[in-house]
């Protein structure tokens, strides 16, 4: 009986005009999202290469390593284009210095602020917003529609158990719709190599897992809509309830969780932190000012020797200030980061009430575009900072820190033309993405929650129908 109802459900779905329309719309959106993602990635890759080359050219024009301004950049990844996460919101460039705080700058939305308003239509948006809504639209009358039409009564005038009916209906709807969605998704995947995006096996695995979690997310909304339909008598009521639940789950809860966590943990904003750092920097400089005023060279010292002595004195003062400043920044940054982490943790945990948040967290974690992306980029940059400092120290005797520099150069008309530096000597910045295993392990909670939501909603729909008034 289950098989018969399952097949009927499949046929009914495929033959309905609702399916034809929604399948066409979803297919177009999915394929467009793959296409746009691929185009965005190619554009980002071209921009990345151009920026790196430009920086190299600028550096290569210098004759002194001390004059070099080196910028490192977060390399674009194909999955970043398909599941944006925070990749467009964080600064992609960092001007490197041998010591001190590193500041990521130049977000994607800086370049294209219009997308900050409307955002990109990536896979996360397609699944998270569009397909979940389609699931509601598709299944809101799955049970009560049959009741209103009279087919439910006719079905149960036969020797049909409620369990096999709802089981067949749930399985038929889920398989029918997910198989249908798989077609454009697979077409989208097949388009990637044709568009010039060649994923490695790790990235294919990630993409596969993202699509699987997307389909699980779609499935839970389908089960939710069927469940609501099995708890109400009229399709108009179940549609309204489904829509309200969807609005809360997809639009309200994720945002509300951030607001609530903001109330629960007060975190100073970046401006306050910057102002505090500036105050301390000025304080340190003010403390050094009398020492600078007291500087004096022994009587009869040559001016050039005085300058060298002064330069050494200033460097020592600067180094001491920098040490104090770094210690202060480290402490204040740590306090700030701890509070921010606590706030984020509360926000994330609260938001996990919503399946939409769970899917967003899972997919961005797998794609490598979760909140961890920023930390990872900064960690890579800090690691590179040490390498860069050692290199600069070797080349210049200094760590290549930004800030006050005094360079004395003498010129001699007879001297040969100055040699430029060889930028290839500079160690390359390498951004290491998290391994698939690590990403999967980090997303295990959210993937588990997605499965749990599925179980709860499928079970709920099942249980609701067992008590449903068939008349």
């Amino acid at each position, binding site marked *: 009986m289950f098989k018969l109802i399952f097949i*009927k459900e499949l*046929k*009914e779905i495929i033959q309905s005009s609702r399916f034809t329309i929604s399948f066409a719309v979803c297919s177009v959106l999915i394929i467009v999202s793959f296409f746009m993602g691929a185009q965005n990635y190619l554009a980002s890759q071209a921009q990345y290469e151009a920026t790196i080359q430009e920086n190299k050219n600028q550096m290569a024009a210098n004759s002194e390593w001390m004059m070099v301004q080196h910028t490192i950049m977060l390399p674009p990844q194909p999955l970043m284009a398909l599941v944006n996460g925070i990749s467009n919101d964080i600064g992609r460039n960092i001007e490197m210095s041998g010591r001190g705080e590193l500041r990521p700058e130049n977000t994607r939305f800086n370049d294209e602020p219009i997308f900050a308003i409307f955002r990109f239509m990536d896979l996360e948006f397609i699944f998270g917003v569009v397909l979940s809504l389609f699931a509601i639209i598709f299944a809101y009358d799955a049970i009560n529609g049959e009741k209103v039409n*009279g*087919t439910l*009564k*006719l079905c149960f005038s036969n020797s*049909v*158990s409620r369990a096999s009916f709802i089981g067949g209906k749930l399985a038929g709807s889920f398989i029918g719709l997910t198989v249908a969605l798989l077609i454009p998704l697979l077409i989208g995947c097949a388009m990637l190599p044709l568009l010039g995006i060649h994923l490695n096996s790790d990235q294919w695995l990630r993409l596969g897992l993202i699509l699987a979690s997307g389909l699980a997310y779609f499935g839970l909304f389908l089960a939710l809509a069927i469940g609501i339909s099995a708890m109400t008598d009229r399709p108009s009521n179940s549609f309204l309830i489904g829509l309200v639940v969807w609005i809360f789950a997809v639009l309200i809860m994720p945002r509300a969780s951030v607001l609530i966590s903001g109330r629960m943990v007060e975190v100073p904003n970046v401006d306050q932190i910057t102002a505090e750092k500036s105050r301390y920097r000025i304080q340190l400089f003010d403390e050094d000012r009398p020492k600078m005023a007291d500087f004096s060279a022994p009587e009869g010292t040559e001016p050039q020797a005085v300058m060298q002595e002064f330069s050494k004195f200033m460097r020592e003062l600067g180094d001491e200030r920098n040490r104090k400043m770094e210690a202060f920044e480290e402490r204040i940054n740590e306090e700030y980061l701890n509070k921010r982490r606590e706030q984020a943790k509360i926000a994330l945990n609260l938001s996990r009430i919503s399946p939409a948040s769970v899917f967003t967290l899972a997919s961005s974690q797998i794609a490598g575009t979760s909140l961890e992306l920023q930390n990872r980029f900064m960690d890579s940059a800090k690691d590179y900072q040490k390498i860069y400092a050692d290199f600069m120290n070797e080349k210049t005797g200094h760590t290549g820190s930004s800030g006050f520099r005094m360079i004395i150069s003498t010129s001699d008309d007879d001297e040969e033309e100055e040699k430029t530096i060889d930028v290839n000597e500079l160690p390359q910045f390498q951004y290491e993405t998290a391994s698939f295993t690590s990403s999967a392990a980090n997303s295990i909670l959210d993937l588990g929650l997605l499965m749990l939501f599925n179980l709860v909603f499928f079970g709920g729909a099942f249980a609701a129908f067992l008590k449903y008034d068939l*008349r």
Partner: protein
Amino acid sequence: MDTMNETIKQAPLLEARNLTKVYEDGVKALDNLDLQVLPGEIYAMLGGNGAGKTTTINIFLDFIQPTSGQAFINGINANEEPLEAKTNIAFVSENVQLYPNFTAIQNVDFFVRLGGRHNYSRSDYETALNRVGLQSQAFDKKLKDFSKGMRQKCGIAIAILKDSPAILLDEPTSGLDPKAGKEFIRLIGELRDEGKGILMSTHDIFRAKEIANHVGILNNGILVAQKTQAELKGVNLETLYVEYMAGYMDEAEPSLVNNLSEA
């Protein structure tokens, strides 16, 4: 037919024993209903809205549980062993609504299989649909384009193909045009003649008198009158029905019923 039933003792295909249903809001929809439908009989339940006709059918289909009493289909308790009981019954509702995106053949195929019959071919379906008078051009058309009469024909074709001993009809001629109604009654008569036991709820007293072996009149859940076809020959059923429905006569005076003027 009545004579045959009297001479050959047969077990009832449909039987209600002291069937009572009181809803949660306190409304008594059925009060000690007793009725029997033997093979080869049509029992017509007459009654106004809320008389208890549909409640009776819903209890036989196990859509609701009786407060007390029992309903049997071919000797099987319909509420204790509903799946087993339903293998012995076919149901045609007032307004047969099949799956609108399926064709007539697809709908018939699905519901007949759901009824446990898996051995039919397309030609069997076509024969049944021809028998109920559906035009062959309509066999492969989607149900959403069908009139009510055409859908009713599909419904009765499904009941025929299910070939169960008992049939429940819930106001089957309601809303049909006279021609379609007459055709429907002819088909029911054929099924009766094949030995099916049919319980039919209806408002249509003329059809009931024409086809039914037994007529029961329900008022506020009480079976206020029950007549055989032979008894009805001497009674103006219309007057009887209207007066019962209007409450002019109460169940304490059943003898008056028999003395009503003839049609």
